[in-house]
């Protein structure tokens, strides 16, 4: 049975109210199209784990997040419209705070299938008073103390990648943030991809595969799926475009009505953006490509 499906199908099939959801990308290549679809389907009571993501702001402002596992988030309500809106509708999330390395290692422990992982940061910080998932323990080998971070195992993980084959073998490059740990820790994996490629493309450069196909439940082909964030080898980000919903309640409501709830899917959203910003807009975000030298593989003796 094919794992290739539309964004609507993938999100409605796997992203259910109340789950713990990993959102990939650490500003680089976030699965923005998938996040819009989650918002559009009004899936709520989510627990989110992610690092530095911008896209998750929309889930917070729409009141869909009960708990947010984070290392960094603008929690100053006077400066964060997203959060002040969440508060105004009675949906202020619980923040479970780590350092960035703490989040990364919690996900790595999840990927490794162990209950915790030792760390040498966060110890001595007051974060431990408010986060029961970080502790200082006796190191069984040195006799000293060491930090310990409890594993995080997301129910579902979503990662946007540059290319993926029809089996789900997903390849991502550029800076990787917590992508490898996060997506491999997730029980159910949704891959959104700029394009679906022939399996030969994957197999001629398999070191680049971030998760193998058999671990992937759903594949969604979605060009410009990370816009307005940047994606290595594909397109530049457009920071002002992300700020478009901000300014006032009216601006926000109009943006959400027109661009999120008022469209059926991401392609319609992109079309609307083009209408607002001009025909040449997306051309202006395309990257001048620089190829690398190919790497070679093979196994038979050269004739």
């Amino acid at each position, binding site marked *: 049975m094919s794992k290739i499906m539309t964004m609507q199908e993938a999100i409605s099939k796997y992203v259910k109210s109340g789950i713990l959801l990993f959102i990939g990308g650490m500003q680089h290549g976030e699965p923005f199209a998938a996040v819009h679809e989650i918002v559009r389907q009004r899936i709520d009571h989510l627990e989110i784990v992610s690092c530095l993501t911008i896209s998750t702001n929309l889930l917070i402002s729409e009141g869909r997040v009960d708990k947010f596992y984070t290392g960094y988030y603008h929690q100053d309500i006077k400066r964060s419209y997203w959060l002040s809106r969440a508060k105004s509708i009675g949906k202020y999330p619980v923040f479970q705070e780590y350092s960035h390395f703490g989040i990364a290692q919690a996900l790595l422990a999840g990927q490794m299938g162990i209950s915790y992982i030792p760390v040498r940061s966060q110890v001595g910080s007051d974060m431990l008073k408010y986060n029961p998932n970080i502790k200082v323990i006796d190191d069984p080998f040195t006799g000293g103390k060491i930090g310990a971070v409890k594993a995080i195992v997301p129910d579902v993980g979503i990662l946007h990648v540059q290319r993926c084959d029809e089996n789900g073998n997903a390849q991502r490059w550029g800076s990787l*943030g917590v992508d490898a740990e996060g997506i491999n820790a997730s029980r159910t994996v949704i891959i959104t991809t700029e394009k679906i490629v022939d399996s030969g493309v994957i197999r001629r450069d398999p070191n680049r595969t971030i998760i193998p196909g058999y671990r992937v439940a759903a594949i969604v082909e979605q060009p410009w799926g990370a816009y307005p964030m940047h994606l290595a080898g594909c397109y530049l980000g457009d920071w002002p475009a992300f700020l478009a919903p901000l300014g006032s309640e009216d601006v926000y409501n109009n943006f959400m009505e027109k661009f999120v709830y008022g469209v059926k899917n991401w392609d319609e959203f992109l079309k609307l953006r083009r209408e607002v910003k001009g025909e040449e807009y997306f051309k202006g975000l395309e990257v001048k490509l620089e190829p690398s030298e190919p790497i070679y593989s093979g196994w038979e003796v050269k004739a």
Partner: protein
Amino acid sequence: MSQENPTLDFNANDQMIVAASHLIRDDDAAYVGVGLPMFAALLAKRTHAPNCTIVIENGITRTEEFELPDGTDTLGTQFHADKLAGLSYVSYLGQAGFINLGFIGAGQIDRYGNVNDTVIGDYHNPVHRFPGSGGANDVMSFCERTCVVLNQTKRRFPEKVDFITCPGYFDGKPGQREELGIRPGTGPVAVVTDLGCYEFENGEMVLKTIHTACGVTLDKVKAETGWDLKISPDLKDTPPPTAEELRILRETAAPLLARHRRTDLERR
């Protein structure tokens, strides 16, 4: 400031960035946070430390020049990196002792170098919320020398922070970091503000230089410090930026300023 030579006009912010850049050595591998630390690191790279390695938390390790970024991760900071990996990889470099310099901003810093990036007031009922640790706690836990760059006000320089996000030397008694399992031989070594430069002696912040060229006085420094500040017996003036440093500083800032001007025009 030099009235006879207008090209040498500079403000306290410029002085802060230049002074911070002097902390980076040519053979440093520096874990650099976005904002002022990144600005200072790029200035160092374009002046006295062209060979320094810059480590960025998303997984970027690079030695080639790049444009001052407006976010932690941009295609410009990724492009032509020496190695791209994830956050864990670059953090492991630090945790294992292979990053000697850390360069971070801060919400508040106290007498003993403890940094608060989390909350002023009660955690659950805050007077002010900062965004949280990000990578700062990791940097200050891992790097041999951590330098903290921030604007100085009495509010941001309290005697004791309400919340320790990144441990400095706690209450100054030696050995506390090591007892908790933090790598020995790490911790804050320097603080650079828009008023002066500080180092740590016996775990306590000590004023070493004042930005006198920008009109800063010792009284002003004391007025913006929340405790009875220890002052170095050989207190000096911060060396003012050279004409060359100012030129490169302006060049480094220009693309970012241009982008910020566009942001307001294009937001729709």
